[in-house]
């Protein structure tokens, strides 16, 4: 394979990345715009960041988003992990294939349908729409993502680890908390982070299931944009991008370093 910097390669990379990142770069640039007109450059300024923190509506929405994200991600992780355990461990019950398939279904379900059906359910049981329904809805759609992530780890989990623990005198519950859980913890954490990310940027399902006093940041931004884009929104989005980018880069750096360390250890062990 040719791995040199041919003209074609360079063009392809530039075009590809421009397509992906140009809109985001524009958004970041205009968040530092002095002018109130979003599309006209009026000089550098950070005033929109200052005014952002004085915009009570946006700050409230951000706070709601974070709370919903933390609670729903945590509960979805617990439920999703339990579902994954049940589906990988109890392989002999009837209809297992059907159940496994049904866990995946919400992944491809159009969000509008999920949102609408949840709304109908909440109305039917007479639950007032607000923070609780919003959180429940987020748990519902993010749980299956957690289940899928944890399930894929459990498939490769060596069951003899659990047998060894029991053989050495640990009852099943103790075995789960001292052996199984620590070993699959990285997958559970990834599942939690995925659920959290999905929760903080969900718009469609939130719009269906939220009520007064429980407006999330994406909902707030969307409703403001309909009245006209302000540089304040650009600033809010830039901060969000920053948080996500730092998170992703940190996670991959840690992973990379761990991988390198592991390889080095293994090589050392083979030599010594």
């Amino acid at each position, binding site marked *: 394979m040719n791995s040199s910097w041919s003209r074609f390669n360079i063009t392809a990379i530039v075009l590809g990345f421009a397509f992906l990142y140009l809109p985001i770069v524009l958004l970041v640039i205009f968040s530092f715009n002095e002018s109130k007109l979003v599309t006209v450059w009026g000089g550098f300024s950070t005033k929109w960041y200052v005014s952002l923190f004085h915009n009570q509506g946006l700050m409230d929405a951000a706070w709601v988003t974070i709370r919903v994200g933390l609670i729903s991600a945590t509960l979805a992780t617990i439920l999703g992990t339990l579902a994954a355990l049940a589906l990988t461990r109890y392989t002999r019950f009837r209809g297992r294939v059907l159940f496994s398939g049904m866990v995946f279904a919400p992944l491809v379900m159009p969000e509008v349908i999920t949102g609408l059906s949840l709304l109908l359910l909440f109305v039917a049981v007479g639950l007032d729409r607000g923070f609780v329904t919003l959180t429940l809805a987020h748990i519902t759609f993010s749980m299956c993502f957690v289940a899928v992530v944890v399930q894929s780890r459990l498939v490769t989990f*060596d069951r*003899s*680890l659990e*047998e*060894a*623990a*029991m*053989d*050495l*005198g*640990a*009852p099943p519950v*103790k075995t789960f908390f001292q*052996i199984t859980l*620590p*070993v699959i913890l990285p997958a559970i954490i990834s599942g939690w982070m995925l659920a959290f990310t999905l929760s903080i940027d969900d718009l469609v399902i939130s719009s269906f299931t939220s009520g007064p006093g429980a407006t999330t940041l994406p909902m707030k931004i969307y409703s403001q944009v309909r009245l006209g884009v302000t540089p304040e929104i650009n600033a809010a989005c830039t901060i969000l991008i920053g948080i996500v980018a730092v998170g992703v880069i940190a996670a991959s750096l840690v992973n990379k370093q761990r991988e390198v360390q*592991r390889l080095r*250890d*293994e090589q*050392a*062990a*083979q030599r*010594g």
Partner: protein
Amino acid sequence: MKSLGNIRRDFAPWNQPDAKPYIQFKNITKRFGDFTAVNNLSLSIYEREFFALLGASGCGKSTLLRMLAGFEEPTEGQILLDGQDLRGIPPYRRPVNMMFQSYALFPHMTVEQNIAFGLKQDGMPKAEIEQRVADMLKLVKLGQFAKRKPHQLSGGQRQRVALARAVAKRPKVLLLDEPLGALDKKLREETQFELMDLQQTLGLTFVVVTHDQEEAMTMADRIAILDKGEVMQVATPAEVYEAPGSRFVADFVGNINMFEGKVADRNGAAATIAGANGLTIRTANAGDAAAGTEVAFAIRPEKIKVSSKKPESGDNVMEGEIYDIAYLGDMTIFHVQLGNGQVVKASSLNATRATEDPLSWDDKAWISFRNDAGVVLTR
């Protein structure tokens, strides 16, 4: 080590009628759905015995071990350990420990923590745990690796951690599932002797599952050969090799030549066997095979002598042609085709560097063996 050798030499409780078995499998049957893994099997293992379950994969040997550990319950039958019925006792309350084929070391714990895990479950005082872990590390010579995680160890070191962890609780019985399967050949041979010494030092009962007959022969006091969930023979390595009880065992353990035939004539213990195409074999001991019985005469390759000239005397002398030669360094294996078409394997030790009686492909050759060199098999 002389004292250990003496213990080992005199150790044969299975020949003492008053000796009490330590582990007893009584009419054990285990079914998985339609598949019968173990079929009405009975077996007795004695205290301090190094016992091997030998068989091809799927013969039920691992199932037997897992039933002893408590991971599977027998469908029918009873397992007794030191007089106690094990039915219904979960694995975490059984006084046996197992060393797993994959070692099953806990990846998130150090070597020390792995070894201490079982002791902690028993609620042993902290100081005692530390002492025991230190002893175990010394026993398996891994003192300087105490703080390492399993992935920072080589295969041989992992195997020793698994062993230390399994014996740390001083179980009544140590179960070993293909303990040396993941090691390379050289390390495997060394470790076999280490395991034997360890068993003698600790005075524990070892039950090892293996598909490697050499491993079973080297280490075990007695071997049970299993096939399709049934015991074919239980005997010492020497008995299994020199006096196999059936065609299956004879064929399974080591190399062997089989001559199918009929007992033509019996004279006390001795007999003449008429094989195919006019082959006649004289044997000093035909066991309980009466005249006219269909039998197989089985003889190991190293008990057959090959020569280029016809031996002047001998109980059994047959003429043939060299069909193939395999030179292995320490020995040479000849494939000799007899007049009736049957190919006989004969091996000769290369005790000197030069061969006195050189034989080559297609040469005429004579094979000969004594009348007590083979066994007569009726099953």
